[in-house]
């Protein structure tokens, strides 16, 4: 496929891709890829050309996964996937970006990285998760108060019972 068509599709779909060699160095990448790299990492490399940069130096998500990336490249691991990786981007409103990163084996001993912008799904999922968790926290709080109330009541009852057990006062 013509590269310009591929670029157009990738940008329209808010996705980026890169091809990495056996040393995990980027040999080819789509124009939008720098928008998805770790911002702190981009500052450190001090160049706008990502060719020759190692994957794990551009994406914090792959630090520690070097051996697994090799397993994917050699076909011993099917795919490496990191869902909903959140980035704080102060220029955005809201200032958060959610990405899904996938690494697959590609032709001639290389890796194919695809990055998808899933911010809208992420924001919705966050809202749902927030409501669910707040509900469970409230239940937990109710249980706690219920137990506390039981303790107070049982103390009150045992105190009253002890009053009744008192012998009648002598006349």
């Amino acid at each position: 496929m013509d590269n310009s068509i591929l670029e157009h599709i990738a940008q329209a779909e808010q996705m980026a891709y890169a091809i990495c060699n056996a040393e995990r160095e980027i040999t080819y990448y789509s124009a939008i890829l720098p928008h998805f790299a770790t911002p702190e990492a981009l500052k450190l490399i001090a160049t706008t050309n990502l060719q020759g940069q190692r994957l794990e130096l551009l994406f914090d998500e792959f630090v520690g996964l070097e051996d697994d990336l090799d397993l994917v490249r050699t076909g011993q691991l099917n795919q490496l996937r990191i869902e909903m990786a959140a980035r704080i981007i102060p220029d955005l409103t809201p200032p958060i970006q959610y990405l899904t990163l996938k690494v697959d084996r590609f032709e001639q001993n290389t890796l194919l990285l695809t990055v998808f912008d899933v911010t809208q799904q992420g924001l919705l999922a966050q809202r749902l998760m927030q409501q669910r968790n707040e509900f469970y926290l409230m239940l937990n709080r109710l249980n706690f108060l219920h137990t506390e109330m039981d303790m107070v009541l049982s103390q009150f009852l045992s105190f009253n019972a002890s009053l009744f057990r008192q012998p009648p006062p002598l006349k």
Partner: protein
Amino acid sequence: MLREKTAMKVIQKKVCLLGDFAVGKTSLVRRFVEDRFDDRYLSTIGVKISRKTIAQSTFNLNLLLWDLAGSEEYNDTESGYLRGAAGALLICDLTREATLPSLERYATQLKRLTPTAKLVVLANKSDLTVERRINLDELQTMTTHLDARYFLTSAKTGENVEEAFSHLADLLV
């Protein structure tokens, strides 16, 4: 001197924060990395990675802290969440009893992928003394079973947060 400083080697380690929802994982990272606390609860989805560099005598240790949400996703062995982690902070909430036994599940999931991963347990929200529902004996039993040291921490006051993270950093080098 300046040359020595710039030439200092950097070692990067992936560390996961694992625990049930609302135990204070994000707050602990925020306290450790930015030294601040926010009382509002905002649940995390997916993963948020933060960096913190700890200077050692001959190198800099760059910790990549994976603040993870929801445990369901960890089960997928192709997921990169737990893979490659050098260590983990297992976090429970001292005011919620059920958050302690969960730590064993998180530890098992991590050890299945990375048997050499180092573990440290953080019993968080130690400032809420009246509401405490986990006693130290239970905590000791669990941490002995996990072969990990525990710290009573408070992201709110900062109690033992630095100590717990530093202890894990020491285990990693």
